[in-house]
């Protein structure tokens, strides 16, 4: 697994708090633009000559951020703001925060006035994904974003630049999809996959592309130690504490599929890279393909989760939801009901980055034991059961 180490080291280096700036220098003085949420088209950031860097929280305690946030705030935002206040993101040339969930909608100005980052953009994303005027609106917003970025960077962001970035991300997303499939065939663990993703979201694409390529080629055909495990799909918003995935796998599970932001949610698939109007293509793909509960209507997302669960032959589903993440929690009872109706056992966990692993351990263990027993009794997952 030395190839894997290569990828995960990239992630660790970039995220190494003590030397964030140093690491960026290591990448030929590349410039980074931070962003939050899957609705920010990274292709646009890349086409302006920047490396997109997705902000996440950390497991360190929050000491400064609550001066600016209510206590009922998810750990993605409180953690990211804490890191920003600690200066960990000072190396960023800018930060893009979209209007998506309720927390994100109102956090823009807090970041703008409390941190040292000089360029900010608040990208407005429509909530409806079912009508053409929404796409047109998002298109107009993306055009405004491009104009602002071009002005700041002094670079032309035209059709060619955007199409080139789309090509790069097509390659990267294709590889990430393969890495995800490697979970299904039990040649990559969920933890390994998530480490790769963390690297992919914070590292110059070309670096990570070659590293993932090498990694995928080095995968062995079979890993006997991963066979026969309880296969899980994990759903939620953002899991930025990988210990939580590790814990599930340490107890004999294998996370083979997901509905997560650092996961399949943001993987919009192949985007045509020869369009005369690439912004329109991006608007259509991002609005149409990302399955986030902050959007309306919801049915497509549920359908998608059920299809993924079936295709990856999971034995159960874990809803790992960030505390105070309303749009996920409000859909949880219905999602849980649908999953159970399709025969999947479901475990619901409320987490943040300070949730003691001990507190999760007992519930995970009990759930996995139950699923293991059920599996050994040969329950099929496709017939509705009143579980």
């Amino acid at each position: 697994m030395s190839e894997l180490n290569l990828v995960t080291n990239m992630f660790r280096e970039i995220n190494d708090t003590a030397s964030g700036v140093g690491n960026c220098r290591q990448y030929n003085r590349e410039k980074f633009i931070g962003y939050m949420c899957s609705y920010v088209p990274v292709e646009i950031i890349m086409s302006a000559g920047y490396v997109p860097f997705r902000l996440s929280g950390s497991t360190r305690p929050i000491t400064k951020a609550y001066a600016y946030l209510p206590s009922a705030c998810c750990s993605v935002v409180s953690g990211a703001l804490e890191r920003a206040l600690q200066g960990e993101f000072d190396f960023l040339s800018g930060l893009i925060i979209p209007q998506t969930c309720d927390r994100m909608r109102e956090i823009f100005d807090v970041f703008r006035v409390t941190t040292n980052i000089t360029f900010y953009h608040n990208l407005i994303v429509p909530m409806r994904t079912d009508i053409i005027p929404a796409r047109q609106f998002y298109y107009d917003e993306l055009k405004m974003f491009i104009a602002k970025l071009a002005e700041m960077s002094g670079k032309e962001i035209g059709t060619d630049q955007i199409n080139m970035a789309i090509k790069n991300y097509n390659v990267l997303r294709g590889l990430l999809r393969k890495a995800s499939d490697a979970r299904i065939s039990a040649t990559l663990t969920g933890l390994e996959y998530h480490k790769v993703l963390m690297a992919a979201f914070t590292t110059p694409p070309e670096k990570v592309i070659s590293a993932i390529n090498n990694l995928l080629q080095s995968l062995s055909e079979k890993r006997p130690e991963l066979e026969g495990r309880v296969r899980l799909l994990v759903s939620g918003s953002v899991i930025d504490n990988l210990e939580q995935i590790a814990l599930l796998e340490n107890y004999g599970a294998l996370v083979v599929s997901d509905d997560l932001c650092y996961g399949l949610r943001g993987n919009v698939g192949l985007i045509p890279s020869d369009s005369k109007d690439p912004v329109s293509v991006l608007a259509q793909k991002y609005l149409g393909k990302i399955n986030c509960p902050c959007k309306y209507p919801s049915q497509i997302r549920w359908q998608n989760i059920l299809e993924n669960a079936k295709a990856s032959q999971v034995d159960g589903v874990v809803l790992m939801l960030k505390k105070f993440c309303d749009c996920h929690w409000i859909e949880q009872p219905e999602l849980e009901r649908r999953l159970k109706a399709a025969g999947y056992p479901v475990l619901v966990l409320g987490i943040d980055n300070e949730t003691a692993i001990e507190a999760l351990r007992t519930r995970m263990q009990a759930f996995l034991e139950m699923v293991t027993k059920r599996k050994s009794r040969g329950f099929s997952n496709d017939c509705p059961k009143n579980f």
Partner: protein
Amino acid sequence: MTAPKTSKALKSSQKLSQLVKKYYKDIHEAKAQGKKIVWSSGIAPVELFHAMDLVPVFPENYAAACAVKQISQDLQYYAEKAGYISDLCSYFRSDIGHVLSNCTYLGGLPKPDLLVASRNLCTTHVKWFEVLSRYFNCPLFVWDLPFGTLNKKFAPEFHRLEYAISQLHELIKVIENITHCELNTWRLQEAIFLGDEAARLWIEINESRKNRPAPISCTDMLGNLFVLVTLSGTPIAVEFLREVAKEVNNRVSNKIGIVSQERFRLLWDVMPLWHHMELFDRFQSAGAVFVVELYNYGRVWGQRLDCAQPLESLAKRHLTHMFNIDMDSRVKLLREILREFQIDGYVNHVIRSCNVLNGSTLHLANKMKKELGIPTLTLESDHCDSRAFAPAMIENRIQAFLELLEANQ
């Protein structure tokens, strides 16, 4: 538990309780007569509903009424039992509880024929109405009104306005399908005309509070808001608000205030603690009077309409209220309000279960405190969940705040 009495100063406000009772009676009668009922989120194109013979019903309003009546906890219990965690919006939990428990307070709400959720404040609204849509097997229309900024004339950006208007056309078709009746432009113009008149009166009443002493209490204002939310676009609202305006103007001329000696003039930002409305009396007992609530005066309701451009003016009102615009525009509006109403202190209600307002209002209050040095009181509680009310802590904070105001005088 019975609801404690809160003090309303105005005679005309007493008419409100009759109006509320009549409204709840009327909506049930309308349903029985086969009229179509729309359940709507609070900031809604209510004039359009009235013009198209839809009977609008507002779950938020009802949830607030249930909190005043002290029955929210029972309702929320049902929602929580159905799996909705207690961190979720307490309006939402109260409403789901009302549905699941067949709550009969004020007769409950008649079943919907259409659901309309505006997304000009939170995603919760839309998600909540999706839950209702499944439960009642009822069509849902989402009016997506993205956040944006304001130009110098307080107008939204062109593409934002276009997006909002295009959806209004869609909504009209949806309503026509339900009522089997085409939109009559004259009726729409009439409703917009009446809505504009109600808004004009509402602004007049609010602005009367610039006077010292302020002639109308915040309990009156928050109560009267009911009329604007549910009946704007009808002659009933205009008639009622005219009477309130008349009485208020009379009180201004005669210098009649809410308390015998008005000592401090305060701003309350968003929703009150509906379950503890007597909190306002606590302030008043120290001569501290609320003269602005951003909840009512933040361009949320009571923005002028234009019957020559009915849809455009409806769209503008819904896009540009205080909490659907960027922070710089909010600060600009707020600075003016603080100056014009001569505000001595700022009370920020950090609503535990409202993720969109708890962050934005805390930040706004922090900004004003930093910029103007205005004494600020932050109260962490909840609009509809009394479990988030810690009386001793709140009393301590209020006391310290009043002392600070005293020292500042």
